[in-house]
């Protein structure tokens, strides 16, 4: 059976070269191409490749973050990073024993990496997610009726915990993610502030606080009509934050 390979690079010529090299390899089939990390994650969900050749520096979402999202999939493909030069990123791969290729890529090296990926699959990737080689993600990954949805963190208005899910309210609607609110709070500490045991809101959207007739306090967010209650515990910190706006 042929190995299905997805090529991800933001430079058309770099993709073309990889495609050319792959055509010279045996038992390899090009599943598709993607131009940035976000497209890559979507393409992996759609095309289910065996191997992803992933560039690191790309606009919108970089390769390291894309690899992290991909690692969360059921049956993830093996990821082989391709990079021109990046000391920090190279150090990260080495620490996790992931394979990487440096550009311009040699055909023999590519062949060997594909061979290895075919034999060992992608077991190492799971570690990467926990080790946090990426400081924080630019997107959250959710599934809606089996389809992959990527929400840019910059578009998120607020996060509401419900049972073991978190509901992500963003400019274009709402989706469920299977993550803990506390973990999201830690990862995006600069971006969101906690207003209640079950709720984080985007700092930059926070516009003020209102008091209802029965004395409860609500946070107001720009562009959001929902009422979000502020708990007694989070009130002092939030007051300070609103005053500093």
């Amino acid at each position, binding site marked *: 059976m042929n190995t299905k390979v997805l090529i991800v690079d933001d430079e058309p010529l770099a993709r073309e070269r990889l495609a*050319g090299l792959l055509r010279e390899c045996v038992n390899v089939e090009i599943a598709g191409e993607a131009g940035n990390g976000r497209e890559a994650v979507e393409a992996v969900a759609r095309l289910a490749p065996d191997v992803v050749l992933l560039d690191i*520096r790309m*606009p919108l979402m970089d390769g390291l973050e894309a690899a992290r999202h991909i690692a969360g999939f059921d049956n993830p493909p093996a990821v082989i990073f391709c990079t*021109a*030069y*990046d000391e920090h990123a190279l150090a990260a791969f080495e620490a996790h024993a992931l394979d990487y290729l440096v*550009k*311009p890529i040699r055909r023999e090296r590519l062949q060997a990496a594909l061979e290895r990926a075919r034999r060992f699959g992608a077991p190492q990737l799971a570690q990467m997610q926990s080790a946090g080689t990426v400081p924080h993600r630019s997107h959250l990954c959710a599934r809606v009726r089996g389809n992959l949805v990527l929400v*840019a963190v*910059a578009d998120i208005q607020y996060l509401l915990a419900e049972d073991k899910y978190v509901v992500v309210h963003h400019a274009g609607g709402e989706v469920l993610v299977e993550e803990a609110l506390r973990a999201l709070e830690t990862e995006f500490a600069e971006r969101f502030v906690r207003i209640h045991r079950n709720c984080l809101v985007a700092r930059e959207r926070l516009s003020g606080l209102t008091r209802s007739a029965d004395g409860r306090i609500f946070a107001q967010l720009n562009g959001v009509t929902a009422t979000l209650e502020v708990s007694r515990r989070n009130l002092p910190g939030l007051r300070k934050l609103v005053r500093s706006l």
Partner: protein
Amino acid sequence: MSAAPSPPPATGKAPVLPYWLPDFCSLPVLFAVMVVAELLALVILIAPSDESRPLLPRLTTASVFVQWLALVCAVCLCKLRPQLAKLTPLLGVMTAYALMLLVTVLGSALVFGIDQQLNLGLTLPAQFQARFIWRSAALCALIGAALLRYFYVLEQWRARVGAEAKARFEALQARIRPHFLFNSMNTIASLIPLRPQDAERAVENLSDLFRAALGNDTARSTLGEELDLVQRYLDIEKLRLGERLRVDLDVADLPGDLPMPPLLLQPLVENAVYHGIQQLPAGGTVEIRGRRLDGAIEIVIRNPRPPAGARAAGRHGMALANTRSRIEYHFGRHGALEVVAGADDFICTVRLPDAKGEEALASR
């Protein structure tokens, strides 16, 4: 004070350095203070006087007295250094100097008093109290001024050597962005089978860029050559980024023969591509516009950039800081680099003196 290592030319205005006053608690500085104090004690001893006591006891008393004053001064300056550092250099030095004089006046008054009470006869007879204090203060004023100047020059020299080494290293790094080299090599490797003629041109362009980057900073170039280099650089990046990189170049107005140091503009354009265009999925336009002003030229480089949330962390400042310091070095206050970082665009404005301005600069 002959040990002062190659002092920089004494100028009227003191440059703003945070540590114009050394740390008097550090051992080398303390040692220097003690050596100077001991030298002073010897000078006092050798100076002709009608003193009849033998040399050794005189040396001992003089040494103890001078060392004691010197160490009290050093401790005071050490403890007050954080407060002094907040003042302007001139005011700080004056304060430190005044402090030393005060310590000496009080110290010698105290010593004189004790000597009179105990009747040891180590200083001067009772009627000469004012003379003793006055002489001590005058000696302190002379030696203190020399010492402060010495430490100031030494610190300044150290700071300069450190800054130079750092600047040299950064310049080396900024000139050859490894990413650019390897990405270009990758582009060329892709082009060889597909479009061999483009590959050939890319190799030529890359060679020109590296020839300029590997040359030395004192080499002279002209504005025309520099703009050519920018064009070569953009040609390479256009191959790599395809339609995502668009260029709007309007520099016909600029004098091509204007002499200038090489690689002053190219790093700014590289920044525009690296931090702007390359970070945008749909790419964008780099605008380069030049115009003549009175006695100067102005070049504006503008690029779109991704919104704050999607911006990759990077060392944006290095090429800018490097270019700024080089402009400062070559043109003084007649050249400038202004940077405006907007929400969705980034604008660099370079102003350099033109031929007329250069003449004015030379005839200063």
